[in-house]
């Protein structure tokens, strides 16, 4: 669980002469342990003398965590002292899940004067790389190092609290960050990306290879165990930090929202410490009195005889929402059943990603309080035609259906009944219906509290030579 950064400056060829001692930075960003630094003898091609000068700690760490893939973009900044000429900067990591092909270096200050000549993944070692950097500047440079790691994830969850009449809900969201990366992240800025990015190779597999292009079966590292001891040790610090924050400001921390390409990004205000093996949940929003519709669906081919209950609302400003898309996650829905706000559990469901102004359907499972009973009342085979041999070659089928629907609830609901037909079919009914597509119709019926209704339709289907379409 260590990663090191080490600078070696001075040209290889010059080391032999010993005229210019070269400068080495060695860094660790392990949170658990700052290795004692030593003057190391680094053998590249020749014998090099290396002076350890300083311990450039990470100045800042930023985590950009994705929820659609096991991927986190880590950005850290450090202060390094460069010499003029060739500088060698060694970066190594172990027991972490860093993708070696992703590691990038860039100078934030003196960017025009500092240029990476190449990157070497040295022979016979894994989890190490060395940048060869030409600098026209001597002195302190702020650098940024970026890489992909695996093992951090985040998810969204929601709570919906419906009013007794199920016309309004209070809707709140939270995000939960899980750290199984093998690394403790201390004082990190956390950014969460909502979106489906595409990865053509698994980051964890690339990380296990230890260097680019190695077969991933080479166990360059074992998967980091949730290091129990350090996590415990950091336990206190974790809570200490949280309480310190809380005492500083009593209000929950803000989450800044930003659209990025086809994705959406939350930046959590302030800094967080997430030790390996821990997860952390943060509230993200709360909307009160969001108008909803209690919507019920019946479709034999999809749900059998069950009637499925939905809360429908729109993620819009008019509905007290609409500030941001809602990430896919889990919802728990409750209904207030008493004046002192006792809950009844309505259901739990996964919710789709909801863009701003999109209509939301929370599917809350079967509800026996709304029933649909279809009955075929009549069946006729008519208009039979024959060929020259006297065989049946065409016929027409006429079905008469009766639908009894009942709302046993004390609140109004909307019921949506779908029927699928095939072939050369014709529908006749007094009931109001919409054609969904060439072979599907829907009957949408608003039902008052405790209302019962019945409707019928007739469907004529032509077969064989009677068929004209």
């Amino acid at each position: 669980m260590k990663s090191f950064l080490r600078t070696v400056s001075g040209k290889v060829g010059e080391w032999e002469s010993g005229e210019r001692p070269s400068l080495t930075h060695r860094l660790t960003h392990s949170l658990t342990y700052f290795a004692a630094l030593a003057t190391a003898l680094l053998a590249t091609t020749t014998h090099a003398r290396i002076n350890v000068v300083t311990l450039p700690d990470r100045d800042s760490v930023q985590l950009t965590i994705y929820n659609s893939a096991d991927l986190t973009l880590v950005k850290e900044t450090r202060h390094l002292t460069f010499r003029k000429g060739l500088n060698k900067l060694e970066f190594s990591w172990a027991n972490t899940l860093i993708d070696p092909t992703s590691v990038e270096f860039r100078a934030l200050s003196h960017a025009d004067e500092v240029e990476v000549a190449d990157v070497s993944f040295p022979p016979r070692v894994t989890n190490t790389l060395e940048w060869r950097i030409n600098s026209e500047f001597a002195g302190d440079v702020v650098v940024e190092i970026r890489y992909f790691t695996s093992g951090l994830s985040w998810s969204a969850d929601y709570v919906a609290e419906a009013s007794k009449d199920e016309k309004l809900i209070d809707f709140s969201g939270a995000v939960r960050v899980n750290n199984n990366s093998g690394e403790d992240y201390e004082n990190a800025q956390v950014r969460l990306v909502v979106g489906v990015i595409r990865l053509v190779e698994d980051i964890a597999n690339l990380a296990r290879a230890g260097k680019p292009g190695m077969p991933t079966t080479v166990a360059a590292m074992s998967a980091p165990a949730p290091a129990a001891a350090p996590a415990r040790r950091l336990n206190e610090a974790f809570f200490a930090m949280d309480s310190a924050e809380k005492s500083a400001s009593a209000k929950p921390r803000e989450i800044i929202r930003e659209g990025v390409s086809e994705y959406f990004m939350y930046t959590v205000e302030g800094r967080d410490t997430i030790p390996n093996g821990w997860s952390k949940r943060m509230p993200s929003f709360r909307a009160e009195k969001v108008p909803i519709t209690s919507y019920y669906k019946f479709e034999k081919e999809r749900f059998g005889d069950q009637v499925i209950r939905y809360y429908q609302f729109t993620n819009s400003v008019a509905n007290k929402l609409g500030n941001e898309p809602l990430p896919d996650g889990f919802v728990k829905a409750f209904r207030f059943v008493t004046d002192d706000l006792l809950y009844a559990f309505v259901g739990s469901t996964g919710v789709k990603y909801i863009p701003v102004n999109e209509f939301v359907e929370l599917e809350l499972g079967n509800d026996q309080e709304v029933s649909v009973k279809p009955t075929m009342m009549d069946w006729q085979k008519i208009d039979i035609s024959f060929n020259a041999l006297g065989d049946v070659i065409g016929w027409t089928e006429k079905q008469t259906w009766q639908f009894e629907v009942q709302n046993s609830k004390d609140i109004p609901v909307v019921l949506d009944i779908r029927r699928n037909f095939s072939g050369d079919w014709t529908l006749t009914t007094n009931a109001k219906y919409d054609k969904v597509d060439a072979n599907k119709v829907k009957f949408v019926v608003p039902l008052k509290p405790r209302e019962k209704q019945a409707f019928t339709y007739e469907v004529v289907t032509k077969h064989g030579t009677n068929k004209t379409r």
Partner: protein
Amino acid sequence: MKRLFCFAVAALLISTAAHARVKLVALPERARVVVSLSHPDQTLVEEERLITLQKGVNKVDFSWRGVSIDSSSIQVRALSHPNDVKVLNTSYPPNENALVWEIASPAAQEERVRISYLLSGITREVTYRAVAEPNEQSMTLRNYLRLHNNSGEDLTEAEVALGYGSSFKKTIAHEEVLEMLSERIEALPVKKVLMWDSATLPWDPEYQKNTIGIPLNYVLTNDKPHKLGTHTLLPGKVRIFIKTKDQPAKEGEQVGEGVAFTGEDWAQLTPVDREMKLYIGQSRDVKVTQRRTKDERTNIRRNTANQDVLWDKDEIYKIEIENFKKEAISLTLIEHVPGYWKMVENSHAPQFKKKDAFTFEYNLTLPAESTGDKKTTVTFELNRLNVQGNEPQGY
């Protein structure tokens, strides 16, 4: 795996018997090493050495160990006196990675020779990293070359030639991987387009458990107006980032500039003037609902057994598209129709483009926040002709 090139020049008479060959001599230093990676699968190494030849016939011994050389590919060429110094023959001893050249020289002289051979174990990879501007209309593209040396041989100050661009000098040890920037293009114009394909995506989002992601593509054009067009772009992994605002760590600090990752794809080989399409992620802020609202057979022709043998079809499709984003976006709808068909009616003729016999596209621009009443609706009516039920869908 330690490589060893033994290189011996001897003016001695090698016994024709299978007696031990005497390999005398100085190891001539390599004067130059050129590694040519222009062939997609094979690596050609050319090395130059200075050897001292006696007048008459010289035996030059070349052997190797710990490296995989295609021995039938080994050639030697005289560079200093190409017209006078002749390779008389080459002998291959049994069970040895070695050969012996008999080289005739008209005089005692130093000769620069170039030895060429195909060496296994040196591979290269092209990777790309791009950082897009927040508006996604342009990006900075960096093209990296990654060399893997598993040849058994340390290459020192080797000239690496790729077959395009200029060659460069690198030292790369056995088992080392070296990555270097080979090209950087600033402000490269890029086109962002969503691609909804009726063959691969669900038609009715309402019936899906998850929000349908529509493939998000960046399209580069390998031509001069797009700041490229100098050479064929080689296949490799492309990782695309986008610039973001970095929130300050402390209050009062300035908003910095950072990046977020937006996805990756394998770039396909892209000749000059052609497009490179990179599918890097999915958009879930655009919703496409396609329905076939008419699907009827007409002109049914039946055989004497009253089976339908031939008919035409009248099909109407309606595609409703909502863009929930605050920005306009390009969307390509891809439709597939098997067999022989004719377009009868088309709501978006200017955006319509036939791609091949069985595929057409609509290249649409969806206005910002075009949802609800403002949604985009595409309808088209097709006549499928002389249908027998065995129509080809591809070629």
